[in-house]
C-alpha cells in the first residue's frame, strides 16, 4: 500500500466537498474491495475519505410503495431485513450467494455497486490493462480469459462486473440516488454501470465527485416467482461464472411480466428487455424459456477459454426460469440445483 492521508466525512455535503477538493481522493465504506486493491497498488489514492459513519444506514418504505436502502447498509443486514427478505427475496438471495458471512458484514450497499472487476490482469500491475492504465492494451483478449465476458465486450476490454447483488437490482429496476456538488440526481440502474467501449477505465456513470446515497426499489418485488441461480467453480465463496436473476408474474400458466438479468457475462449486470418481452403473454414452459435464452444470447461471443459460458448461460436461463415459474427458488445453502 502506498502512503495516504485519512479523513472522516462529517456529513454527505462534507464528503462531496472533500472529494471535489482532491481529485486523487477516494471514499472508503466497508473497505473490502478498496483495501484489497490498494494492497496490490492497483488503486493508489492520495487520501481516503471515510464515509462509514455517515447516517446512510436505513432501510425504509417510500411513499410510492417501494423501499429506500441507505448506501451504508451492510450487505448482510440488507439481506436479512424483513422488508427485503419478504418483499424482495430475489435481492436477499443474490446477496447471500456472494462473498462470505464476514465480508457481507463489512460490505456496504454503495460499495457493492462500485466494486471493480476480478480480471486477473487488472489485479496484476506488471501486465498491460486498459482499465487500469488506459492505452496499454488488454492482456485478457488474447490471454487467459476463462472468467471473462461474452456479451457487450469491446476489443479494448472483456472484463465482467463481479457483483451478485447488482444482478438482482437490475432485474428489479432499482434506481441509484447520488449527491454531488450540483445537488442530487437519480440514475436508473440500467444506466449506472457502463459497457467498456473505448473507455474501459470508467466502470460507471457516477462522476468522480459524486457519492451514492441510496438505492430505491420500486413496489414490484416478484416475491412469489423468482430465483437467483449462481454457477461457479466451487459451491460457495467464489465469483459467478454465470448467474441468473429471473422473476415472473404469472396468471395461471401465462406469463404476465418477466425480468431476466445475468451476472458474470458482461461489463455490467446484463438485463435484456427483448428477452423479457419474448416471454410476456407466453405459456411458462421450456419452449418459451429456451426462446428467451436464445434472444438474450443472440449476440454472445466467446474468446479462447470462455466459450463454454454461452451454453452454460443458455441452460442456466432455462433452469432459472423453470425455478421461478414453479415458485421453487434456488436455495443458497443446499446447493442442489433442481
Amino acid at each position, binding site marked *: 500500500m502506498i502512503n495516504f492521508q485519512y479523513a472522516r466525512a462529517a456529513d454527505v455535503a462534507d464528503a462531496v466537498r472533500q472529494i471535489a477538493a482532491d481529485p486523487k481522493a477516494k471514499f472508503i465504506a466497508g473497505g473490502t474491495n478498496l483495501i484489497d486493491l490498494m494492497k496490490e497498488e492497483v488503486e493508489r489514492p492520495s487520501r481516503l475519505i471515510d464515509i462509514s459513519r455517515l447516517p446512510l444506514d436505513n432501510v425504509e418504505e417510500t411513499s410510492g410503495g417501494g423501499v429506500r436502502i441507505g448506501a451504508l447498509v451492510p450487505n448482510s443486514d440488507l439481506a436479512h431485513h424483513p422488508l427485503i427478505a419478504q418483499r424482495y427475496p430475489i435481492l436477499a438471495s443474490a446477496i447471500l450467494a456472494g462473498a462470505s458471512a*464476514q465480508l457481507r458484514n463489512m460490505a456496504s450497499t454503495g460499495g457493492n455497486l462500485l466494486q471493480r472487476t476480478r480480471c486477473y490482469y487488472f489485479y496484476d500491475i506488471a501486465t498491460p490493462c486498459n482499465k487500469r492504465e488506459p492505452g496499454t492494451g488488454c492482456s485478457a483478449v488474447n490471454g487467459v480469459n476463462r472468467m471473462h465476458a461474452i456479451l457487450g465486450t469491446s476489443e479494448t476490454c472483456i472484463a465482467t462486473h463481479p457483483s451478485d447483488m447488482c444482478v438482482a437490482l437490475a432485474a428489479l429496476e432499482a434506481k441509484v440516488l447520488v449527491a454531488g456538488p450540483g445537488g442530487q440526481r437519480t440514475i436508473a440502474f440500467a444506466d449506472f454501470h457502463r459497457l467498456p467501449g473505448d473507455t474501459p477505465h470508467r466502470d460507471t456513470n457516477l462522476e468522480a465527485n459524486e457519492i451514492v446515497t441510496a438505492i430505491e426499489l420500486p413496489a414490484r418485488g416478484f416475491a412469489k416467482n423468482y430465483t437467483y441461480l449462481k454457477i461457479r467453480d466451487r459451491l460457495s465463496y467464489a465469483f459467478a461464472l454465470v448467474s441468473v436473476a429471473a422473476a415472473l408474474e404469472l396468471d395461471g400458466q401465462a406469463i404476465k411480466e418477466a425480468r431476466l438479468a445475468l451476472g458474470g457475462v458482461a461489463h455490467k449486470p446484463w438485463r435484456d428487455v427483448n428477452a423479457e418481452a419474448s416471454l410476456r403473454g407466453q405459456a411458462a414452459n421450456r419452449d418459451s424459456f429456451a426462446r428467451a435464452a436464445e434472444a438474450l444470447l443472440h449476440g454472445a461471443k466467446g474468446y479462447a477459454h470462455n466459450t463454454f459460458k454461452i451454453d452454460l448461460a443458455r441452460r442456466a436461463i432455462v433452469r432459472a426460469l423453470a425455478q421461478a415459474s414453479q415458485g421453487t427458488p434456488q436455495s443458497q445453502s443446499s446447493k442442489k440445483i433442481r
Partner: protein
Amino acid sequence: MAPAKPHQSAAVAIPVPDKISVSLNVNGVDVQLDLAPWTTLLDALRDRLNLTGTKKGCDHGQCGACTVLVDGRRIVSCLTLAVMKDGSKVTTIEGLAKDGMLHPLQQAFIDHDAFQCGYCTPGQICSAAGLLAEGRAKTADEIRELMSGNICRCGAYPNIVAAIQQVMGHS
C-alpha cells in the same frame, strides 16, 4: 501490446501523515494506539498488541484466518483499517476463554479434533462465535455455507461442522 509501465502515473509525493490516535477495547481492555492510517486491524493486533492468535493467511479477505469480532460481528481484520474502528470493541481468540474456562467452541474443537495444523483455527472459532450470535444456521448445510469464508487447508471441515453442532445443541 505496449509494455506496462512499472507504476501508474508517477505520483507526486504524498506527505507522510501524522499517526492517528485510535482507542479500542480489545478483549475487555481499553487500549490507545498511535497508528499510521494504513495499519490494518490485523497488523495492529499482532504487531502492536502482541495478540498473535489472530492469523494472517492471505491478507486479501480470501481465507478467514484473520477473523475477529468487532462490536459482536465477525469480520476479516486484514481488510479493516484500524483507524476506521476507533471506539470499537474487538474480541479475538485470546478473549473467548472466561475465568480460566475455555469457550464452549474451543472445547468442542478439541473434543472433535477439528484441526490439524491449527493455523486456521482461531479464525474458524471466532467465525463460529459470530455464526452462533447471528442465530441463522440450523442445518449442517447452513453451517457449511455460513462458514465458507473460513478455509482450512488441512481439510478439517467435517470435524469443524461437528464441533459447531455440538455447541449449537447445548445452547
